[in-house]
């Protein structure tokens, strides 16, 4: 049970703003869970509710099986790594890392030893007597991490801890952080608005929007099977189409988006005569030569080329609708603007999306 989190129907409002609405979430011990969403989605508020900086208006919060909703921050078995580090400027590195141990009135020898071990863990051995304003951003981040980890919390909360780092350092820290978590087997709750970061590091991701958890699952599941239009959009599904369901037959739904007609594998959610949102990942759109004989393909014209290094995105207008198709760098063919092509939407690539909030 140690390190498990259970959030049950938690709500929190600030004045007229509902920051967190009826959120329920379960985190298993030792899991790396990311709260992902745009700013203002409630992810930081949820983290602060876990840390104890805010008290919920409704619902229950259980950490390691214990209801913590009424406990102040200093009585909770969690520690936090803050977005802007929040290191104490009036203390040196060792003083910062030792702060929590001193609050627990640990003997000096133990404090020294545990501080040294924590600094070693974040690869800052020997930095004990540095002033915090002499450290680089990455070093500050490591000190903040050591300061929280040294207390061996049941749950570590991380509030966009990498947001202030430059891209290269950030990529490096993502790997380090993930490795550290796997080594310590500690429950991490990580808040970020960066999709890639979430997908790279997490065991599971909770995508939040307007105070609610829209979808909670493994990175693979989220990527491959986004449940709502918002999740699909936030995870980079470029082709989001509003289509009319013309017929449902033989495991396929016949859809029409303007003049563009295509089929989707029926997941049981399509109703003939109604409208539905569907999404197609660009890399699953097939681009064919203009003279390719493929019965279900559509004639289209290349409108734009977006070169991304490892791949190229083509914007193709087919039957009045703009569709983005991606080709990996190796498979890409030279095409020019205005060139005629054909494109196909495989039925298994077309995903039905709920409208969400």
């Amino acid at each position: 049970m140690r390190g498990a989190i259970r959030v049950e129907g938690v709500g929190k409002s600030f004045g007229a703003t509902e920051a967190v609405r009826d959120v329920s979430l379960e985190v298993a011990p030792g899991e790396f869970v990311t709260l992902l969403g745009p700013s203002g989605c409630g992810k930081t508020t949820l983290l602060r509710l876990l840390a104890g900086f805010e008290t919920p208006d409704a619902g229950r919060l259980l950490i390691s099986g214990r209801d913590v909703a009424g406990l102040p921050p200093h009585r909770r078995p969690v520690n936090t790594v803050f977005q802007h580090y929040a290191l104490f400027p009036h203390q040196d590195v060792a003083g910062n890392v030792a702060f929590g141990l001193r609050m627990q009135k640990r003997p000096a020898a133990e404090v020294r030893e545990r501080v040294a071990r924590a600094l070693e863990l974040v690869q800052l051995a020997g930095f004990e007597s540095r002033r915090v304003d002499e450290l680089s951003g990455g070093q500050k981040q490591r000190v903040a991490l050591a300061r929280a980890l040294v207390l061996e919390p049941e749950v570590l909360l991380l509030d966009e801890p990498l947001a202030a780092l430059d891209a290269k350092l950030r990529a490096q820290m993502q790997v380090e952080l993930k490795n550290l978590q796997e080594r310590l087997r500690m429950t991490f709750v990580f808040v970020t608005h960066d999709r890639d970061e979430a997908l790279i590091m997490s065991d599971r991701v909770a995508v939040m929007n307007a105070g609610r958890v829209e979808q909670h699952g493994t990175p693979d599941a989220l990527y491959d099977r986004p449940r709502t239009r918002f999740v699909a959009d936030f995870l980079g599904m470029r082709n989001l189409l509003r289509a009319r369901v013309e017929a449902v037959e033989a495991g396929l739904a016949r859809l029409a988006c303007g003049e563009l007609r295509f089929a989707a594998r029926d997941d049981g959610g399509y109703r003939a005569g109604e409208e539905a949102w569907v999404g197609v990942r660009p890399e699953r759109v097939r681009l064919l030569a203009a003279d390719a004989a493929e019965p279900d393909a559509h004639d289209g014209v290349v409108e734009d080329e977006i070169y991304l290094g490892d791949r190229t995105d083509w914007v193709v207008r087919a039957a009045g609708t703009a569709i983005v198709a991606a080709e990996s760098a190796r498979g890409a063919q030279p095409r020019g603007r205005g060139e005629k092509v054909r494109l196909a939407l495989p039925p298994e690539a077309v995903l039905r999306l709920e409208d969400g909030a």
Partner: protein
Amino acid sequence: MAAAEAGADVKRGLGLFALGVYLFLYAPIVVLAALSFNESRSSATWEGFTFAWYLKLLQNAQVMQALRTSLIVAFVSTVVSTLLGTAAALAFHRHRFRRAGWLEALFALPIVVPEIVIASSLVLLYAALSLRLGLVTVVLAHVAFSVSYVVVVVRARLAGFDRTLEEAAMDLGAGPWRTLFAVTLPLCAPAILAGALLAFALSIDDYVITSFVAGVGSTTLPLQIYSMVRSGVSPEINAVSTLLLLATSLLLLAAHLLERGRPARLCAAPAGLGLALLAGPFLLGGPAAAGGERTLNLYIWSNYIAPETLAKFEARHGVKVNVDLYDSNEALLAKLQAGNANYDVVCPSNYAVAILARQDLLLPLDLSALPNLAHVDPAFLDRPHDPGNRLSIPYFWGTTGIAYRKSRTGPIDSWNALWDPRFAGRILMLDDARETLGAALLLDGRGVNEEHPAALGRARQRLLAQKPLVRTYNSADFDQVLLAGDVWLAQGWSGQFAKAMDQDPDIEYVVPKEGSSFFLDSLAIPRGAPHPQLAHAFLDFVMEPEIAAEICATMRYSTPNRSARALLPAAIRDHPAIFPPADVMKRVELLEDVGEATVLYDRLWTEVKSAR
């Protein structure tokens, strides 16, 4: 090339300008510090280096006592106002609550309210609460005005304070109190220190509010200095100021080093030295007033009685005399009118006696307890301000006249000399409505207590005609200006001029032939005095011929005590400024309260001073 040179010129020009600004800021302080080592008493001449004033300072019990009082008030009010102000600033910084804006503005308001308004309202409040004026009321008043500054200063510095630091502390297991002491306060320390230093500085030099709310045993250094103006500010004050400046500079330096994160060892030296300097008065000057003893509370002008004279009274009656000082009759009136001052003996001038009598603020004297009144010259008894001496006894007197530098002017015997174009730019007049209009009235053949508007109007015309010749109007240190040689003729009071004549034989004093005025300062007992019997004993004590002679010899003011005069050394007994000959006494008139004409005097004098 030319542009670069022009740029260098501008740079040099700006540098010179900056230098000028710094000079402007610090020149007065440098002069003050330098003069504290000047052997000459006068600020006009440098006569060599000396530490004498510092030694004299240590021996000056009154100044040392005032310094102690100031430091006690400053320390206590700084601690209290810093605690309150910091708490308030933290509350405003942290919490958004209803009407926070208004409540915060209310804290800032006292900064812009004129001090005099705060002062008079505090006096009314204390009277309403029947709080006795004294050390406590002074400390309360200082807390009241400095807490606003602390709030503003601390609040401004807190604006950049990162609240997540407090959250981090709580997150790491610190409860609210430990967060406050382990994170919030250490991080706010520079702000709090800045607030505390400001509060200390404000308290140390406050005059206006303190002069209103001070009572028994609470004469602070500024009150002491102001009260010395009448008899001359001595260079000991320069020494005190220099020491205070040095102490606070050292403390500031320590604070600065600490803020820069220098090791505590390095900061300890200046901090310790500064604190030692501030603690000095408590160690060197002997113990402060001992409690429990019976005390006589005396409220008097500075340099009006010597400590050794008071010591004789203390020894004889086994009591302690507590001396507090004031600098104008108006200050005394305000204090007694407030009705909670606790003084046993006060020293009003004759016209102030009349005002106090009208308001029934003086205790009728028991003349049977004052046998030594028989030694007082009848010429000073039974005057219109106090018929039959029911309320007061004469203490000191003096004349108004002209002191002049005889090598420059030749002999002078008339007020006309002050209107003589030959001395244009070398004339000093008192800054005093009654005295200046009085001199003009005498030239017109009228008296100094004239109340007729037409006569007063003519006197104003005379003063307007004289104005181009006058170098300055000065009632504070006219004797020093004359000694410095800035003016050749000065209107003024005999007491200071007597001392000036002792210093410079070129100076002569005359009561002009047209006549002049004289003042008479009395001792009286306010109603509600806690020790009326002891007060009577003190009044009788100062009228003993030996004691009166000692007071006159040490203070150089004229004594009204006939028997005492015979006991004085010839140099004082025959001093023409201290004891003018009988024919001179015939032509001087006591300045009386002119009742409703006072307003007219003040208006005419203001017209003269504001004319171009």
